[in-house]
């Protein structure tokens, strides 16, 4: 039975099957459904934030707008951590290193070179690429625990070196960053305008989401996902794991650095704390709570975490206990995270599928 079918189809193997097959269409339809549920969530998220901005501005608030801006900037770091964790399956405990380096690069450019938005971000991006390459060459040869520990150690060491470097402000960091103008097409936005800068960062976050969503739908993105599921098979399919991991690492580092580059524009200073372990772990926590591997999850988780901390902080100074406990609960009982649950609920296969 199979032999006959095999012989028949064997002929089809030699020539290309013209047009797109029905099987592929079915599969793509299913993949689209899953992606749409996440895009829907993302749309909701961004709209909600835009509405929030309008309301806050009308109410004359600046604190919450700045907090939300910081949350989105931190969200960039969380996305960076998730590219490694949720896609490549690599747990980085030192992603804040690239965030901090990007922040320092941006700060130095704005303060000592030229208070230019694009130049500062370019410096951050360049720093991220370079540092990511170096870090990646070291770290991507290993995986699992070893990867986590290498990234952990790398961040610790560099943070310590910077902490002890007087030229970089040592433990105080760099302060007195000038307020810059952000050129937005025909207009400019002042960096210290709460609503204005928030919108700039919001747009940046949307662009990041769009770009990464595109990447996830490419073979490269699929290979990354496959890397997480079964790294050992990939080389036998023709894809050496090392270069792929390195590419993912460099990409993640660059994203973290650019996000970090926005930080001094918001807060006017940078300090070694931006590279510390706590920052790195918070990024992971945001990604896990929001939903790893979903791209919108880390952004969601970041906003929840930052606002959650702020809220908890009004009741007690021991917010680590609550966050830590929530994190453990998420790891044990909700490993898919919020976005993951949405995807499963709304993006699953049609009920009447075969």
């Amino acid at each position: 039975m199979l032999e006959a079918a095999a012989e028949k189809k064997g002929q089809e193997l030699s020539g290309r099957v013209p047009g797109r097959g029905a099987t592929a269409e079915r599969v793509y339809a299913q993949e689209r459904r899953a992606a749409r549920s996440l895009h829907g969530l993302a749309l909701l998220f961004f709209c909600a934030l835009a509405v929030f901005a309008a309301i806050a501005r009308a109410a004359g608030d600046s604190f919450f707008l700045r907090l939300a801006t910081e949350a989105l900037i931190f969200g960039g770091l969380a996305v960076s951590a998730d590219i490694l964790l949720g896609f490549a399956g690599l747990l980085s405990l030192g992603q804040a290193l690239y965030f901090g380096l990007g922040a320092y690069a941006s700060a130095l450019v704005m303060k000592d070179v030229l208070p230019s938005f694009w130049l500062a971000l370019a410096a951050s991006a360049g720093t991220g690429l370079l540092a990511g390459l170096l870090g990646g060459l070291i770290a991507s040869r290993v995986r699992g625990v070893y990867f986590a520990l290498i990234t952990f150690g790398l961040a610790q060491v560099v943070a310590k070196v910077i902490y002890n470097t007087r030229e970089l402000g040592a433990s105080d960091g760099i302060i007195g960053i000038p307020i810059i103008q952000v050129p937005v097409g025909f207009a400019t936005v002042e960096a210290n305008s709460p609503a204005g800068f928030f919108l700039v960062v919001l747009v940046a976050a949307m662009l990041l989401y769009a770009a990464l969503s595109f990447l996830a739908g490419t073979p490269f993105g699929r290979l990354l996902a496959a890397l997480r599921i079964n790294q050992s098979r990939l080389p036998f399919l023709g894809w050496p794991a090392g270069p792929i991991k390195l590419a993912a690492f460099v990409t993640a580092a660059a994203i973290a650095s650019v996000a970090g580059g926005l930080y001094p524009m918001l807060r006017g200073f940078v300090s070694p704390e931006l590279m510390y372990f706590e920052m790195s772990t918070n990024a992971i926590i945001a990604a896990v709570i929001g939903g790893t591997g979903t791209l919108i999850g880390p952004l969601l988780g970041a906003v929840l975490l930052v606002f959650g901390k702020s809220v908890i902080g009004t009741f007690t100074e021991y917010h680590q206990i609550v966050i830590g406990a929530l994190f453990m609960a998420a790891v044990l009982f909700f490993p898919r995270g919020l976005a993951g649950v949405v995807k499963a609920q709304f993006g699953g296969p049609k009920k009447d599928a075969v």
Partner: protein
Amino acid sequence: MEYIQFVLAPQMLNGLSFGVSVILMALGLTIIFGLLDVINMAHGEFYAIGAYTGFVLLGAGFSFWAVIALVPISMLPLGYAVQRLLIRRAFNSGDRHTLSLLLTLGLSMVVADLLRMGFGPNTVRPETPVKGGLELLGIFLPAYRATLIALGAAIIAAVYLLVYRTSLGAMIRAAAYDRNMAASLGVPVERVYSATFAFGVALAGLSGVLLSPVFSVFPTMGHDFLVLAFTVVIVGGLGSIKGAVLAGLLLTQIQAVSSLFISPVWSDPIVFGIMVLVLMLRPQGLFGKIGYA
């Protein structure tokens, strides 16, 4: 000659006393990994718990010798409970390493803050239990450091004997080597796991007590130490007792002697650099898993 007598040798002995405590901590980590396949990121917190417990007990009037016995004993049930209630849940998942890492990470956050809540953020320092100094072959050494070396060596030897010369140790090694086979041979695997985790945690706590007069006690004392402990474990080989001992001695000696020539700022980068080199060139470390140590 004088240099050796007054500078180098005391520094090396200092390194030795530090090394012995680092080894105790690393032993706990490596045993937990070797058997349970669990990365305990909260190990530093157990180290701190041990130090704080010791501090409290000393303050309550117990003698130092009583305390170094009481602290690890009191931490056994704690470790057992943590394993049963928490760690075990991560155990059956395929992503065990990542999951246990994340779980213990969360745990470490909670515990660190709990310690801060209970004892305040400030540093405290128990009195040095053995005062004075002694002279050994013309080298002057604080008496407590000497005690540390002797005590530490004895405990390390005891751990080695326990793992390799007792039936409990045999059960642990069997379960580490092949869980299902051990279970079918009648080894109570679940209980062995919990007991081993408890044991590893107790070692961390003991290390905390022993080092508290030297390094003081504060809520985040475990963090920096954890990096060093992990480095020792990796260089020595995850799961290897022999490796932890050798790597512990080696790394702390390198740290001690190098600090004579270079600024202490570089001490961490050097240690880290060694870890990276080992991970890149020989990821399994010096020796293998606990079953074949």
